């Protein structure tokens, strides 16, 4: 929002405060200042010039070479605008001035330049290039300004103002600050100055009031209107200049006045051409298929339920958004109806959104305006109108105000407020500050204050003690509050096992497995659904930003594979992991099943069986967490065509599936154009968390008696799994301490469907030294078991 310092000065004398001081203090007391522009700086080195002659540019078709009189001398300026004419008065920006090329981008300081080989001293500017509203394409025609050639532009425009740009977002909750008067009130408190009262007209009319019917008092809490007959209007009036300084063009006295008051008090007003209004004004909801051509000459299809201002025949305006073209005032309008109304902020905002029409009025109304402001605005309009026009009130003031809100009152405790701030704020300071802000106060007892909130602060931002703490603290000065660490009882925070586990896993994978941690988006899109042939349900974004991000991921695989592909041209060896959420829909009324998953992916151009490496990562990780798990070969289901058959492992924990370890199928790799073998593991963090530390780590005493070893080589069918052999062999005798798989061997002599497996057995008793007889007993048992249970043939027997 733009605030003119000259305008502000009418209400509060802060002429001694420099722009820098203003910015610095207003920032920390009230709201963020985005920037300060003073006309003197903005228009420095810019003058009114007159084009004396125009010649073709020798080297460019679109450029022309002018000789332009700038008073003290004539300079040569190259110009590309098609609308220049000899004798035209123009804005000349001389070297040293700052302009915005074509009204866009950053300000650029002009220097003497050569344009296609022709010297150019400065630039003939379009209005937007010097920060003025653009009225024509091309350069601005300044002929209408009655001043000598060479006059500084600031003088020609009569601009000596400074404009402060306040960040709109920081005023979201302060409807009272959406105009100069509110800002002036704030400044008066900040700098302890007197706030001058607003001059308004006294209305004494016996005329019959404008006929108004409010059918929707909830959406239109208050509607005021007055009918005027105008007899003389001056369009060369005093409000155009302040409006211009905050970037508004003049549109004639009536419209200018409504704009002026909106930027002064924050209350939007509207004027109707009374002759275009048939009968009573009705504030109602739009009916089906109603249409209105708005002021911007666009036909708008209204939706049922949008609040409109209508007469007996037609819609006149979209309430709080924009007026209709037909009932708008023109130069010739003599009879007007002035509207000062209060509308429901949500209704206005939603209507504006649906229509895609965000006007200044919408911006004000959506902040929750004070319903008592309509009266001040209407009277202020009449007061200002008296200065520039002759008029008569032909229809008296209508005021539909179904339910005037009760004043908001509550009690605060000065001591408690000081305590909550943590600063020695006195009751006197609190009283003085609140009074200056417009609160009414009655002292009760020693520390209590009963207060009445001014109506302009009661619609949205002030509702209780916390809000008063803010008012007092900020105006006391946040910078005066001493930091003090909280003094509280010493306690241990509740244990968070997930945190411990997550950190352990990440550190293990990064430091023990030397993998790189990656993050991927929680979303993927149609491309992934198709490539992975996912047929299960997904949680879907209702309003996605792009086709790439429409579905919530149920697997980490698609994102990580994308990541791998992105690196595959640069690296031969890629090892990455991700710990991230996946989201499975359950039903529409409960939250998705959100599970953290651990993804591990590995490829190496020299590794034809990356499965082996990734399995070792997974097993080492599970061991480090202290999880008892079982694994088995896994036959992928039809929908898991991205797994390579014969290279999949499933991991169980209790009766739950922890995850899978596998290589990606050629099918999915070809879709991603990955030529190397890729192994992937996805584990369910939540299941690991549930089983974490289940097997308590206990020291087993080291046995002093020597152990005995023997190796076995057995020929079995190719399908026989080492895993099942190991599981079954270790249980054959109590003396078997460990069974270690040594190697696998295939050979034509064994037969195509056979393989030889070698194992090393370690035997151990905790209470004695083993005898040869012990070993023979176990060996015999093992050999028998291998041959009977697995059809194995022991080699070398």
């Amino acid at each position, binding site marked *: 929002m733009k605030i003119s310092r000259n305008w502000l000065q009418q209400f509060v004398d802060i002429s001694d405060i420099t722009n820098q001081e203003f910015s610095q203090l207003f920032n920390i007391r009230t*709201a*963020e200042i985005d920037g300060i522009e003073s006309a003197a700086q903005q228009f420095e080195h810019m003058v009114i010039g007159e084009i004396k002659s125009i010649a073709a540019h020798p080297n460019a078709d679109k450029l022309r070479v002018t000789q332009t009189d700038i008073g003290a001398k004539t300079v040569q300026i190259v110009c590309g605008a098609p609308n220049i004419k000899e004798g035209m008065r123009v804005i000349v920006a001389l070297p040293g001035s700052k302009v915005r090329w074509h009204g866009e981008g950053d300000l650029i300081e002009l220097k003497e330049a050569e344009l296609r080989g022709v010297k150019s001293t400065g630039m003939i500017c379009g209005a937007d290039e010097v920060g003025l509203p653009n009225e024509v394409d091309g350069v601005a025609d300044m002929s209408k300004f009655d001043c000598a050639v060479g006059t500084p532009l600031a003088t020609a425009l009569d601009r000596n103002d400074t404009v402060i740009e306040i960040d709109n977002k920081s005023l979201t*909750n*302060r409807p009272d600050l959406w105009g100069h008067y509110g800002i002036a009130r704030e400044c008066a408190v900040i700098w302890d100055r007197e706030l001058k009262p607003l001059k308004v007209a006294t209305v004494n009319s016996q005329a019959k009031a404008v006929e108004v019917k409010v059918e929707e008092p909830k959406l239109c809490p208050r509607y005021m209107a007055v009918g005027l007959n105008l007899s003389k209007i001056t369009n060369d009036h005093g409000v155009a200049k302040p409006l211009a300084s905050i970037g508004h063009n003049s549109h004639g006295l009536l419209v200018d006045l409504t704009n002026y008051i909106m930027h002064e008090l924050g209350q939007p007003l509207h004027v109707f051409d009374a002759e275009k209004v048939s009968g009573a004004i009705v504030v109602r909801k739009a009916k089906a298929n109603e249409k209105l051509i708005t002021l911007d000459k666009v036909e708008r299809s209204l939706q049922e339920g949008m609040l409109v201002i209508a007469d007996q025949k037609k819609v006149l305006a979209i309430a709080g958004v924009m007026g209709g073209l037909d009932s708008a005032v023109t130069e010739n309008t003599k009879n007007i109806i002035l509207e000062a109304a209060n509308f429901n*902020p*949500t209704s206005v*905002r939603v209507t504006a959104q649906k229509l895609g029409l965000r006007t200044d009025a919408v911006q004000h109304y959506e902040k929750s305006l004070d319903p008592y402001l309509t009266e001040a605005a209407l009277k202020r309009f009449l007061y200002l109108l008296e200065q520039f026009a002759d008029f008569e009130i032909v229809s008296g003031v209508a005021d539909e105000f179904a339910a005037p809100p009760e004043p908001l009152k509550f009690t605060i405790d000065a001591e408690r407020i000081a*305590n*909550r*701030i*943590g600063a020695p704020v006195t009751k006197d300071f609190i009283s003085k500050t609140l009074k200056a802000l417009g609160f009414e106060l009655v002292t009760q007892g020693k520390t209590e204050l009963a207060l009445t909130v001014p109506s302009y602060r009661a619609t949205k931002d002030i509702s209780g*003690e*916390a*809000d008063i*703490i*803010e008012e007092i603290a900020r105006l006391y000065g*946040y910078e005066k*509050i*001493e*930091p*003090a*660490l*909280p003094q509280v009882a010493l306690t241990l*925070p*509740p244990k968070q096992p997930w*945190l411990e586990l997550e*950190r352990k896993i990440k*550190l293990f994978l990064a430091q023990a*497995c*030397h*993998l*790189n*941690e*990656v*993050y991927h988006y929680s979303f993927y899109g149609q491309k992934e659904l198709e490539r992975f042939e996912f047929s299960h349900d997904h*949680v*879907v*974004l*209702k*309003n*996605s*930003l792009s086709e790439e991000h429409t579905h919530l991921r149920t697997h980490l695989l698609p994102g990580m594979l*994308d*990541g*791998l592909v*992105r*690196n595959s041209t*640069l*690296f031969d060896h*890629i*090892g*990455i992991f991700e710990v991230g*959420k996946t*989201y499975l*829909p359950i039903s*529409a*009324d409960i*939250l*998705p099943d*959100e599970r953290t998953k651990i993804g591990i992916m590995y490829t190496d151009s020299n590794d034809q069986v990356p499965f082996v490496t990734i399995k070792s990562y997974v097993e080492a990780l599970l061991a480090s967490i202290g999880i008892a798990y079982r694994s088995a070969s896994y036959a992928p289901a039809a929908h898991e065509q991205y797994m390579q058959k014969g290279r999949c492992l499933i991991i169980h924990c209790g009766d739950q599936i922890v995850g899978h370890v596998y290589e990606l199928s050629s099918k999915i790799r070809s879709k991603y154009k990955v030529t190397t073998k890729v192994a992937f593991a996805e584990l369910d963090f939540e299941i690991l968390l549930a089983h974490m530390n289940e097997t308590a780590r206990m020291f087993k005493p080291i046995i002093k008696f020597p152990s005995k070893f023997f190796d076995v080589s057995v020929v079995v069918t190719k399908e026989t799994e080492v895993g099942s052999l190991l599981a079954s062999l270790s249980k054959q005798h109590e003396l078997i301490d460990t069974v270690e798989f040594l190697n696998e061997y295939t050979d034509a002599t064994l037969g195509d469907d056979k393989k030889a497996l070698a194992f090393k057995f370690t035997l151990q008793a905790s209470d004695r030294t083993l005898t040869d007889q012990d070993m023979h007993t176990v060996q015999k048992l093992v050999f028998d078991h291998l041959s009977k249970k697995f059809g194995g043939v022991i080699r070398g027997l």
Partner: protein
Amino acid sequence: MNLDDIQSLIDQTQDQLGSCKSLAHVETLEKSTKQEVDRQFAIFKSFSAEDKKTHGPRMQLWRSSVYKLFDDKKIELKNLELEALESKESIDVTIPSKAIGGSLHPLTQVQNELIDTFHSLGFAVMRGPEAEFEYYNFEALNIPATHPARDMQDTFFLNGQNQVMRTHTSSVQVRAMEQYGAPLRMIVPGRVFRNEALDASHDHTFYQLEGMMIDKNLTIGNLLAVMKLLLKEMFGREIKVRLRPGYFPFVEPGFELDAECAICSGAGCSVCKRSGWVELIPCGMIHPRVLEAGKIDASQYNGWAFGMGLSRLVMMKYKIDDIRLMQGADLRFLSQFAL
């Protein structure tokens, strides 16, 4: 037996060994010398008992001296042999080693540092759902359905009923209150989502760290002190800060905490838009309505909360110029964050 012979045998052996260049030569010599020693001892056996007693110790000493000469020489030659062998094994030790690799994402690293700081102050570390009910993301935080923040352009809405991708980690505030009640100290690091177009400094997915403390009689000064402590831990030095008004519906009063610009030390530069300050941590005193939503008696307890942009902090810390590097797996980026 002539003892002088014996001494001369030692001298002779020493001389002979001095010119020995190979182990085989030493061994041959050793054999013949030992035979000579054995011969002398055979003579010694024939000595009278008295002579044996007189010369016995000298004989023993003589024998061990001779043997030692051979042992020493063999060790010397063995060492020479090993040295010669090792000299052939010399390698170029300046060849670069193969990178071992392994890294943690910068967001994880910074998050861990912050968790450690807060944990040491007795703050619990919590997590909450990323796909969240509108209630916890909005209503419970005093953001009613009519609030402009609820507009489609800011929030990803889900096909589930009244569900959104959480727009801030503040969504865990009321969940934490429900679970633990007051007093409470907690932080929530995590992923948040906004329906925003991507560019170098905006992403629809980014990270925040929420912090909240609820107790009796907490002050604005308390919040300020903890924030200063946090920044000191993070940057390793005292950071000048200021509070100014900021509006967030779930805090009252609400603040923007600015830190003195690190680039210009407060003098004003292009990074801080000439203000000397950089907006860093939105924070405030928890709104009583939020405490009430969490079933905490707002007349007894109060609190403060902050929500820090972790992604931005990481970018500041490592001078990362594009937020989009955070997502995706660019190893040229990630491998710079080895542990």
